């Protein structure tokens, strides 16, 4: 942050006061809404609730648990996408805006493979094998897309002013989105039907969870564990961390920087591919613009957790997903705002602004290469 340039304790200007007011205002909405919600849960007819929102009914325990599970599973997918943003930002110091499209390509290739398998009759008969195959295809396609992207669009721009690769990645994102529209048509594509045992609800420690959501959580945790092992325990992972720490010194130590950067993109792409197919299986449909919002939100998740910090990305994703699911009903509904569920996306963006205003390095701290460190 450029605030570092300013001397500590220098004169407060108008903008500082404004920012303070904004911080306090946003935080007090959070605190006040939460307070109103809790009071409402205890006593539905309390004076505060009837003043703000006389129709408020509060949430039942089941509704609350449902929201938590939805938030967690959604957040796990954000986290998986966020890993790609985070790793690339850690190594190259730029936001790969097109990473959301990598995720979308994963979801899309998953759709194509699964419908083809369904037409052949294998989806129902050999469900697990089919899903496994679709996941492999999705990972391959996403990885390829990320690697090609790096090679064609970003490598020639390495070392140019910071905003240039960002603008290029906006172009890449726009291009991929529209290429998918012209190649495969603009309509929404539906995944084939899932078997009943996967869509049924299961009761786990008083939580009623749909099978698909369990699957999302399990697969996301496994992928995260795999990634953790890869980054922390293998030689390639060590090289990645070294390049993220300091590219030039890493090169002097004999690390092939280009190859490591490609690996970073590939690994990020693979994670996005996994997230893509999970998204498809959970929401059962995919469209060319699927990648945009989850992409931006995953970036938000990466910032919330601290850019360059892998555990932080996952934690940021989960917190963002939960905040998005819970905040409209827990914070905004008690304040008497209409149609709160429409504001889900606005909540996500407001969280991004809030985190950047209050703790710009994210909840768990940034891990960036020397040049980018604030």
């Amino acid at each position, binding site marked *: 942050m450029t605030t570092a340039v300013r001397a500590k304790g220098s004169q407060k200007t108008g903008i500082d006061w404004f920012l303070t007011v904004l911080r306090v205002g946003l935080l007090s909405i959070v605190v006040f809404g939460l307070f109103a919600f809790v009071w409402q849960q205890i006593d539905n007819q309390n004076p505060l609730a009837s003043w703000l929102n006389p129709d408020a009914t509060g949430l039942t325990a089941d509704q609350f648990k449902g929201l938590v599970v939805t938030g967690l599973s959604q957040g796990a997918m954000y986290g998986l996408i966020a890993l790609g943003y985070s790793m690339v930002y850690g190594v190259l110091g730029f936001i790969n805006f097109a990473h959301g499209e990598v995720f979308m390509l994963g979801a899309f290739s998953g759709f194509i493979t699964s419908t083809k398998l369904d037409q052949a009759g294998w989806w129902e008969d050999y469900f697990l094998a089919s899903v496994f195959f679709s996941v492999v295809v999705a990972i391959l396609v996403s990885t390829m897309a990320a690697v090609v992207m790096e090679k064609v669009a970003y490598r020639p721009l390495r070392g140019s002013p910071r905003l240039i690769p960002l603008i*290029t990645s906006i172009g890449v994102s726009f291009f991929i989105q529209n290429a998918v529209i012209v190649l495969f048509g603009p309509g929404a594509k539906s995944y084939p039907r899932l078997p009943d045992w996967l869509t049924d609800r299961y009761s786990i420690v008083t939580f009623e969870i749909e099978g698909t959501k369990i699957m999302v959580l399990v697969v996301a945790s496994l992928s995260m564990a795999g990634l953790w092992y890869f980054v922390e325990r293998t030689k390639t992972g060590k090289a990645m961390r070294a390049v993220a720490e300091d590219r030039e010194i890493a090169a002097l130590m004999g690390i092939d920087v280009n190859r490591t950067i490609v690996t970073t993109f590939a690994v990020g792409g693979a994670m996005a591919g996994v997230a893509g197919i999970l998204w498809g299986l959970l929401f059962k449909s995919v469209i060319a613009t699927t990648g945009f919002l989850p992409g931006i939100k995953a970036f938000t998740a990466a910032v919330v957790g601290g850019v360059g910090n892998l555990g932080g990305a996952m934690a940021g994703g989960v917190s963002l997903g939960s905040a998005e699911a819970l905040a409209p009903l827990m914070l905004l509904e008690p304040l008497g705002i209409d149609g709160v569920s429409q504001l889900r996306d606005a909540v996500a963006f407001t969280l991004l602004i809030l985190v950047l205003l209050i703790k710009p390095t994210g909840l768990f701290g940034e891990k960036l290469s020397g040049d980018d460190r604030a």
Partner: protein
Amino acid sequence: MSMATHVDDVLEEIEEVARGAFDLNWQRVLRFGNLLGLALVFIALSGMPVSLDKREVIDGIISLGYLAMLVFPPILGWTVGKEVVLEGMTATKRGARDVVAGFMVGALGGVWVSILVLLVDNYNLRDPLVNWSPELLSLLSFSESVGFGVVAWILLCGVFGAAGAALHLLTPKLRRAVISMILTVVGVSIFQSLIDDLVGGIGESIADPGRLSEFFGEADTPRPRVDSVFDGVIDFIYAQRGGLTIAGAIVLALIAGGLSLSGRGRIAKAKASYNAKTGPERTKQTAIMIAVATVLLIVLPFFTGRITQELLANVGIFLLLALGLNIVVGLAGILDLGYVAFFAVGSYSIAVLTVENPPESWPDWLPTLDGQFGWLLALLITVVLAGLVGLFIGAPVIRMRGDYLAIVTLGFGEIIRILFLSDALGGYFNAAQGITQIPGADFGPLGVAHGTNPRSIFYLVLAFAAISIYVSWRLERSRLGRAWMAVREDESVAEAMGINTVNVKLMAFVVGAVLASFSGAIVSAKVGSVFPTSFLILVSIIILVVVIVGGMGNILGVLAGSFVLIGVLGGPRQPGLLAEFSEYKLLIYGALLIWMMLQRPEGLIPNVRRSRELHQDEFLQDAWLKGEVDTEEDDETSATEVAPA
């Protein structure tokens, strides 16, 4: 010298050329050939050729659909022979080698298309690929047999590739002539509706001058068609069912080639003489040029039909937006991806202020609105509101890193759209139903500018565009403008020089917001309704492409960008001249953005200072080669950042 030895010499030379002709850089040829093949297959499968086939470029010879594919072999054939001549090295001699390389690249690309033809013939992949259709097959096989198509594509692409490569063999002057011939023919064909409208209108007015006076009468009565004096010319150039006639194309090409050969020097000379002038003389010439352009634009609607006026009005609306974004991105170097927010605020606030029946549940504590504000007063309030929103959005983001700022502004853009769409503010803005029946811009005695009368909107846009251009131009040369550029180049240094960077950047946000709100206000008056769906992030990105392709930080560049992109391809919802392209325009915008960033980040008409910043390394290298810079002293870290971390 005897005849025999002479023949021997010639034969030897031919042999040498032939031997050299296949001495290619095969790896490069393979790479470009495969790239071409991929591009061609992608375009074929995108459905572009089939849907553009209806539009002829030259009647009976080539349609826009085929052109969309055949434009690539020459370009890649040319590129494969291009080489960077480094300091101290000499360029290789051009010869048959280049043409052969071009042919190989083209043919290899053609092989990909041929394989596609065979695949489409034998398999059905229409399920995921929507354009895998019999029409595609018949187009790709030129409505002949599949075998014919297979052979034809390889040869055709090869020949086109060779033709592109052959440009290397021409002298620069001839090459320019050939290129301008091709561009003229394609351009005149693409601009058919515009030229038809304009030339026809002028011709009609000459044939029947009385109709000019009717211009001031009732705005909307369609005038009867009169035989234009130029009907003969138009009929000669354009074929009945669209596209150029063959004879017309030949004549146009000859004229363009002749003009290019004879006139090239003159334009350069005029430009040089203009640049050489200084002081009042230059100001005088600039003033004359501006006056001529203004008069031309003012009289233009006398001669043109609705379509041209509508088109120009759309161009103007996006020009206003682009000028505003140019100040934010081009001058101050702040990448604002949520620029559409200000456009939305402008549209909505003027709509709410001027509409006669306010939204259903307009809250009691606000004064009732029943359109008692005049349009100008409403515009004033709108501008103030937009400025305030600019401050509000700008203040929290101003100290963020440049790339974080981009994403956060994008978030703000989405938040504002979501709020307009939501029930939470539905009482004010009618949520998804939007606000309809917005009256036009009322200027009292001058009349009302409303969308039903495109001419009035054209003048409204023209007036605001003139104001905005003037404001941008003055600002660029003001103290504030110089402060913006200083901040863009190096924020820390700017701060050290005593610039209050925070205030300066906030001002950029505010000015940008005000210009965008002009555009929003005009759109409300033009369309008569606003809906939240008109303010997608897409709009921000298209404006960004316009600014970047035109040339960041250069008003002329922004003008050129808006005319070329919005005029030809069209805006997010507005059709351009190539209405057939509407399905593909976003794809083309994306591709253009990538290509510009990789090849020419300073834009088509660059701002000199900006382009120096972007090519700092190259300038330093040049200076180093000339021995001007002591390498020990250059500080490479501080200079390479647009926005310092």
